[in-house]
Structure formats: structure tokens, C-alpha cells
């Protein structure tokens, strides 16, 4: 028994040596740059909307900015470009709202051949579903807590 465990440990150490190491520094730098740039694009869009439609209030501007970012992402995903950004940027492409949009469109396109309803529509929310469920539930909780304070 003891021998087995020691052997297992030795084997694991051997395997770990051979495994490709996660390149912490370069992935972090790439995520930082990608995320920063995507946010700068968002800032530019909101400034442009403010410039061309000065009558919009803050909420409308931020709503339109979000929609525009989502539109751009969906088109880029449709052409297969966002996947390349994703493999370069890692978390930098997941955490912005563009990553949320990509997580809706990407499985939709992938499962399209299984049919529109059971393939495309059902799989749109395989990643976005948990986000929506947690988000809405938590927001309702927060609202109810605020009722009492």
C-alpha cells in the first residue's frame, strides 16, 4: 500500500514536470491589454453617441453603448474574428460585456445544424443562462433587502 502511494507521488511529480506551464505573466499582460482596449472602444462609442445625440440622458446613452458593443461582437463572432481575439486575450475578452454577447452567439452558431429551435435557440443560453439566473435572482434579493432598510 505504502509503496503504491509513493509511486503515485513520484508519477505525479514526473507528470507535472512534463506539463506545459501556464505562462502567468504573458497571459495576464494580454488580458490587461485586451480588456483595456475593449473598454476604450466602449468609451469612444458612448462619447460619439453623446456627441451626435446630446438630448439623450445618461441611461439611454449607456443602453445604446451596450447594444452597440453587443452588435459589434455578434458580427465579429459571426465572421469568426472574436474567437481569435478570445484566444489571444483570455479573460480580457470574457469579462467585458462583449464576452457575454459572444457566449450567446458562439454556441448558437455552433449548434445551428441541430435545428433552429432545439439547436440554436436552446443552446444560446448554455453559458449566458447561469449569468442571467444569478443576476436577476441576486438583484431581486437586493431589492427586497432595500425594502426593509
Amino acid at each position, binding site marked *: 500500500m505504502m509503496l503504491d502511494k509513493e509511486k503515485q507521488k513520484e508519477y505525479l511529480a514526473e507528470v507535472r514536470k512534463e506539463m506545459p506551464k501556464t505562462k502567468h505573466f504573458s497571459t495576464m499582460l494580454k488580458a*490587461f491589454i485586451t480588456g483595456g482596449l475593449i473598454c476604450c472602444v466602449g468609451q469612444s462609442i458612448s462619447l460619439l453617441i453623446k456627441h451626435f445625440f446630446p438630448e439623450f440622458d445618461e441611461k439611454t446613452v449607456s443602453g445604446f453603448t451596450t447594444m452597440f458593443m*453587443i452588435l459589434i461582437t455578434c458580427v465579429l463572432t459571426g465572421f469568426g474574428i472574436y474567437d481569435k481575439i478570445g484566444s489571444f486575450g483570455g479573460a480580457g475578452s470574457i469579462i467585458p460585456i462583449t464576452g457575454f454577447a459572444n457566449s450567446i452567439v458562439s454556441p448558437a452558431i455552433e449548434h445551428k445544424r441541430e435545428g433552429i429551435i432545439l439547436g440554436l435557440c436552446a443552446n*444560446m443560453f448554455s*453559458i449566458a443562462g447561469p449569468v442571467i439566473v444569478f443576476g436577476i435572482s441576486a*438583484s431581486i434579493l437586493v431589492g427586497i433587502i432595500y425594502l426593509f432598510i
Partner: protein
Amino acid sequence: MEIFLTYLKVFLVGGGICLIGQILINLTKMTSARILVTFLLTGIFLEAIGVFEHIKNFAQAGATIPILGFGSNLAKGAIEGAKSSGLFGALTGGVKAVAAGLGGAIFIGFIIGVISNAHSKS
């Protein structure tokens, strides 16, 4: 000059948030769904305790474009709803506030999904 400073803030804060996410992925091998949920809940929490407003005033799109901003919008809508119309507002306010993002994502996602074809991953 001022616009340069604004963009610098946006870049640093937005990039910083993604950097934290990348560290989480590297250390815990989280999947993207978990990362999105974690950051969304963080955004809701930050908004609920009133911190997010300051981050937003400082970094603008650097705070609102990451999914944190989506969470903050949800929480803000629910809080405003609770204040203005009680329980009904608390239940509907959050969804109302993110209707733009949610509706846009679903509609545009559906249209693009229907018209474009799968790319082979090389």
C-alpha cells in the same frame, strides 16, 4: 489632455478588472461561465453597498463595459424600483434596467446565429 487622462483611466481600470479575472483563471482553472457569474455578483454587491458609483465616476466605461457594470445596473434598478414602488419595483426593477443589454443580446444573437455559418476551428 483631459480626454487622454480619461482614456488612461478607462484603460487602466478596465484592464485591471480583466487582469484580476485572468489571475483567477490561471490559479483556479475556472470556466468562462463561472468567471462571468463571479464578476456579475461582485458588481451587484459593489452597487448594493454603494461603492460602484465611485468607481464609475472615476473610470466611466472602464467600469461599465466589464460585466461588473451589468451587475451594477441590475442592482441599481432593483434598488430604485424598491424605493419608488415597493415590492413590485424590487421584483421588476433589475430586469427593466438591463432590458437594453439583454434584449439586444438575445435579438442580435438570434439574427446573427440564423444568418452565419459555423467556422471550423483551426
